[in-house]
């Protein structure tokens, strides 16, 4: 074998190894989702069977059960109301604040938002639970939305700071010279330019609000329970409806996965802008 083809063989070998490794790694990250979806179509017996069953006749029983007895549609609506409400309100609070931090260097305020991100959820829950109970806000949409602002506002603000910093200052100065007010500059120049950022921040905030479990666990009741709490409640005290758990888990993960896939570039941009900009 000549030296050149030896080198080429080495290169091909390396490429094969690379793709093999890649598939292995991707497989590891994807497998639990695959397993979750697969088990949704098994009967209870098949799920608890050992060795685990990979080939079987699928059934829609679990999915039917989830819809039949779980009030699934009602709780989906709750999740929608709370997440979208928290993101919408979060945008109103976070966008101007992010702009102010980006343009006017409000470092102290930025630190306040950061502290907000640091505090564990449980720290809010003890006082919130007591105060909400006193104000009659337990098991209310308003209470839950306000609670979830603690998730959405820091996230939106943090991400949007990065995007606002990218808006060229010359454009804003030009507008000011043309007689535009500062508010106008924000609304008519800066905001439209950061539209991709809005999608990023919005999607991220939506997903994390949607996935939230601890807050609705304590603050929501029969009326306003959200999907993650519903899924958890399938793990009832005694009879373990494994089929129901898997089906419900798949159903609740599906919208999130679809959302992410639809706007993945924005999702990634939102995730990375905090890290890259620092």
């Amino acid at each position, binding site marked *: 074998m000549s030296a050149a083809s030896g080198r080429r063989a080495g290169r091909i070998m390396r490429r094969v190894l690379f793709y093999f490794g890649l598939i292995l790694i991707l497989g590891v990250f994807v497998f639990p989702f695959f397993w979750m979806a697969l088990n949704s179509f098994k009967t*209870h*017996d098949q799920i*608890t069977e*050992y060795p685990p069953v990979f080939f079987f006749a699928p059934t829609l029983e679990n999915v039917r059960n989830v819809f039949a007895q779980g009030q699934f549609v009602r709780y989906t609506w709750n999740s929608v109301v709370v997440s979208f409400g928290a993101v919408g309100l979060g945008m109103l609070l976070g966008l101007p604040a992010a702009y102010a931090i980006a343009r006017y260097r409000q470092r102290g305020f930025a630190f306040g938002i950061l502290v907000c991100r640091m505090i564990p959820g449980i720290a809010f829950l003890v006082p919130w639970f007591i105060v909400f109970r006193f104000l009659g806000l337990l098991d209310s949409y308003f209470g839950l939305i306000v609670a979830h602002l603690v998730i959405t506002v820091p996230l939106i603000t943090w991400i949007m700071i990065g995007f606002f910093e990218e808006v060229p200052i010359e454009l804003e100065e030009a507008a000011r010279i043309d007689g535009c007010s500062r508010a106008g500059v924000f609304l008519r120049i800066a905001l439209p330019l950061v539209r991709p950022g809005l999608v990023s921040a919005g999607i991220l905030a939506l997903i994390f609000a949607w996935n939230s479990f601890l807050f609705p666990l304590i603050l929501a009741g029969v009326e306003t329970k959200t999907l993650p709490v519903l899924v958890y409640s399938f*793990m*009832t*005290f*005694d*009879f*373990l409806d*494994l089929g129901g758990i898997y089906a419900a888990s798949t159903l609740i993960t599906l919208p999130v996965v679809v959302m992410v896939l639809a706007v993945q570039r924005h999702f990634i941009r939102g995730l990375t802008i905090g890290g890259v900009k620092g």
Partner: protein
Amino acid sequence: MLRGLAPPRTLEELEAAARRLHSPPSVFGFVSRGRRTQAPYSWSHWLFANGGSWATPDGKPAINAPAGIAATEQYVRLLRNYGDPGAADAGPAEVQTLFLQGRAAMILDAVSWAGLFSDPARSRVAGRWAATLAPPGPAGATYELWAWSLAISPFSDKQRAAWLFVQWATSKEIQRTLHLRSFPMPRTSLWNDAEWKAMAEPGFYAAALAQVQAARPIGHPPFIASPEITDVVGIAINNALSGRNIRTELDAAAGRMTEVIERTEPRR
């Protein structure tokens, strides 16, 4: 699935039977709750069967008395040697699932599960299981009583509606419906009901009736801070399941128990 063995009539016979029937990984001899928050409930049977109790009459912990140590030794031995590998994490759901699949030879748990075990739609052992009295120990027979109660809060603005609901829920018709679904109800007449007697698996009716008449609420520590004390004892049992020294664990638990009691019980 008893392979010619008679139902155990003492705790020793229970252990012997478990040893005979234990053939992992397809069948485990004896399964019971081992999770921290759940274990004390099941373990309490051993505690009282050995003559122990949660506390002395003047409110001091008694779980680390010799009876408590013996009870823990027996319980842990059973679960470690003849139980399923997930014992330390087992709550009611896990234990139930194992029995329903036919992977547990014996189980000591709630009477209300009988209906589930006999439901062919969800149980692989429907029609193939039987029940007997919870085996007595050296100190004799003890049976546990656990009841769900209904209460109306003085702060409620729907007290009348709540009262009407309570009346409805405890009425004979509603209780009978639940009783026939194997959620035992407190009305004596129901326990003599012909239809219910016909439904019950062999031995189950006799055992359940005998137990309920002699049962006392021994499953939980008789204190205000019962959940916290249960967890404290549960930690000890769970650590013992992991192999730690039983005496040390129970002594530590008794110490924590004292601290909780002092903090939460009203002064006598």
